[in-house]
């Protein structure tokens, strides 16, 4: 059975579309995206692990977790929930963090809108759109402009992928 993975950058629009189908009920998929102990099991690509510091799943609530490298190095990921429709949609505002997990107020921002759809065969389709506020946000990833303790840089990702 195909999982129909779609990853489609539209750089001119500063957007990336990501879509995937899962062979599980929408209730299960929703739990996996919203319960910290479940999120931690898939959000960090191995051999990285994830540690949730805060997960306040309410509109205006904060989601702060760390991607932890094999040598204990932490990369904080900060998001604020801007909209929640229980069982069907989540919107977040992503911000860069300093080494202690504090968001950088005037740093670059990104937005993610995720929709969950029940499809035939007790399966679930998840559609995400990531929007970058400005071109330079993507560029910062490209240049690895954010070093230690902020977010995953290209080099770190490459190392990570090479070690898979």
């Amino acid at each position, binding site marked *: 059975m195909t*999982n129909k*993975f779609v*990853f489609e*950058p539209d*750089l*001119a629009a*500063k957007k*990336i579309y*990501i879509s*995937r189908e*899962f*062979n*599980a009920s929408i209730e*299960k*998929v929703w*739990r*996996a995206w919203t319960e910290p102990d*479940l999120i931690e*099991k*898939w*959000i*960090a*690509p*191995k051999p990285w692990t994830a540690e949730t510091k805060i997960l306040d799943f309410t509109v205006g609530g904060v989601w702060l977790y760390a991607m932890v490298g094999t040598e204990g190095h932490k990369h904080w990921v900060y998001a604020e929930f801007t909209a929640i429709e229980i069982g069907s949609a989540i919107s977040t505002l992503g911000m860069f963090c300093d080494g202690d997990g504090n968001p950088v107020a005037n740093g670059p921002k990104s937005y993610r809108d995720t929709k969950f759809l029940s499809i035939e065969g007790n399966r679930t389709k998840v559609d995400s759109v990531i929007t970058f506020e400005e*071109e*330079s946000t*993507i*560029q910062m*990833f*490209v*240049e690895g402009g954010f070093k230690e303790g902020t977010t*995953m840089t*290209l080099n770190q*990702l*490459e190392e*990570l*992928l090479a070690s*898979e």
Partner: protein
Amino acid sequence: MRRDIYQAIADPTRRAILMLLTVGALTPNAIAEHFDSSRQAVSKHIQILAECGAVDQDQRGREIYYQLNIEKMKEIDRWMEAFRKMWETRFDQLDNLLNDL
């Protein structure tokens, strides 16, 4: 003003210029011939492309040729590929988790 590669591709005329240059280096005049806009407007776009590092200048005699900076354009691809792989891996891990739920 600091410019980046994404500003290069944010504009349809600039994307069209980049497409033209995939075939080979061109002078500003040769580029401008492909557009209805004024030479001046096209020159401005070329200047932005140069500032973004998307194109390089090559002085040949009295003419300046512009060519694609392939390495710079590849930056986008490389990052996108790493990002795509990260999501692919995440989703594969999520499949495993869902099987056990």
